[in-house]
């Protein structure tokens, strides 16, 4: 069947006529462009970015609000912040609590989540803490944190962790608990030790959901880092945002916000790389970024 349709296709092409049978390789717009087909995900990303930025530009030009700059103005502001180095100085500040908080949340979060998923009593002991943490209104907790830990790095790391950790812990615990029991029985029947059951069966089985928790956690951590800079002490990118807002330099404000979103996307892509390096089998069917 395939043989035959290929043959028709080939003869039709050699005679310079459009093929009669519909060829499989056509791009989004129905054109025969193998290169486009091969890079379809990338092309789609670029197209959707162009649509968003175009809409932004148009909205800025109407303008929807005097406080809403166009895309081009924002990019110009971003460029000037990049060349004068102020953006890098700002990120030097912002990245500290962000990276520390995310690392802590990732390692402790996954470990505690595994523990909760594996042991009933750990579930009983720890789950409520993280459920409350996830539900807590963070802005209300910030004054409390500042009272206890001051206005330094510690408080900001805490804010990042409070944002990032619960979803990581709860996703990990749920994923571990939902490992199909037949996998575990299979491992046991072939004499896997407890450590092997965890390392070779439970962890890989749970990894897709653990990583989706990490993605959510990392995104929440970004929100936490900016929130900390807006609510505790204005430093880093949070400072750019609040300062440029106070002087009505909206282009710079949007540039800063844009840059943090770009950084978050880069981070999430990095996370996916890590996932695919650690668990190659997860390569199937993930919608990323």
């Amino acid at each position, binding site marked *: 069947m395939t043989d035959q349709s290929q043959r028709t296709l080939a003869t039709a092409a050699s005679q310079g006529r459009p093929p009669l049978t519909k060829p499989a390789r056509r791009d989004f717009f129905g054109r025969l462009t193998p290169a486009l087909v091969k890079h379809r995900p990338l092309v789609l990303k670029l197209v959707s970015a162009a649509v968003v930025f175009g809409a932004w530009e148009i909205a800025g030009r109407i303008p929807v609000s005097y406080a809403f700059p166009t895309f081009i103005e924002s990019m110009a502001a971003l460029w000037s912040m990049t060349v004068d180095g102020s953006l890098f100085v700002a990120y030097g500040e912002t990245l500290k609590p962000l990276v520390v908080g995310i690392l802590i949340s990732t390692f402790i979060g996954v470990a505690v989540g595994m523990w909760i998923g594996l042991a009933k009593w750990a579930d009983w002991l720890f789950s409520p803490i993280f459920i409350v943490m996830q539900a807590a209104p963070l802005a209300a907790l910030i004054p409390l944190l500042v009272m206890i830990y001051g206005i330094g790095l510690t408080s900001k790391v805490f804010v990042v962790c409070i944002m990032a950790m619960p979803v990581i812990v709860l996703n990990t615990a749920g994923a571990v608990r939902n490992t*199909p029991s*037949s*996998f575990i*029985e*299979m*491992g*046991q*029947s*072939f*004499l*896997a030790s407890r450590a*092997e059951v965890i390392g*070779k*069966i439970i962890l*890989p*089985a749970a*990894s897709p959901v653990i990583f989706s928790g990490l993605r959510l956690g990392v995104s929440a951590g970004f929100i936490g880092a900016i929130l900390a800079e807006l609510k505790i002490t204005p430093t880093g990118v949070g400072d750019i945002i609040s300062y440029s807002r106070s002087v009505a330099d909206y282009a710079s404000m949007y540039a800063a916000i844009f840059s943090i979103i770009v950084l978050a996307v880069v981070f999430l892509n990095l996370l996916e790389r890590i996932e695919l390096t650690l*668990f*190659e*089998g*997860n390569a*199937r069917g993930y919608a990323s970024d």
Partner: protein
Amino acid sequence: MAMPQTKPAPVATTDIAVSARSVSKTYGETEALRDMTIEFPRGQLTSLLGPSGCGKTTLLKIIAGLLEPNSGTIEVNGKPVTGPGEDRAFVFQDFALLPWASVMRNVAFGLELRGVAKSEREAIAAKYIADVGLKGFEKSFPHELSGGMRQRVGLARALSVNADVLLMDEPFSAVDEQTRRKFQEDLLSLVQNENKTFIFVTHSIEEAVYVSDQIALLLPRPSRVSEIIRPSGLRMKDVDNIRRDPEYLDTVDRIWALLRSYVE
């Protein structure tokens, strides 16, 4: 092609590889097995035949050491079972393949857990992958295989650890008829050539009569053995003629007559 299927006359004192004594198992309210006693002679294939939900998988898992009975004992080679062991390998009804692992890794997984070096276990696995007819699919992942192919991966995994006792839970249920018949023949020669004990769950009366040394008919839940049938005459026959043999046809009929009463 015809392969003589003659067997040395059974030894007077049949050697029992696996025995279950008054095993009972309840899941909460559900009483799956009640006071089940059954013996599995070494080097022979015993089929468990019974209605769905009667506790066949439960019995196999208890023998495998994956489940604990509420009462009663299981002995394998004279030693009471306290957990899984190297002497038993399981073919799971739901295949239990690791979706993130290739066919090769899945088949070699039992050996991997036993600490066999990678090159060695992959060589062994490759042989069994070829034996079950999956040569060329070593690098595929389970989701890329059909149901029958997945089942064969589970079969290859169990065979590759070279256990004395093979616990096979409906191992051919998802394969096509041609493959099924081929596997039945392969199974017969495996039983013939290797001194392994097979405990084989099936829903097919014909399959049970074709491959078994003894067939245990199980009652509906709570399950006990209602009857043991030994189509012993068939085991001397040529594989190609079994299905035409009067004893085969009579046994199939007899079992159907017995099972029919449960269905009605």
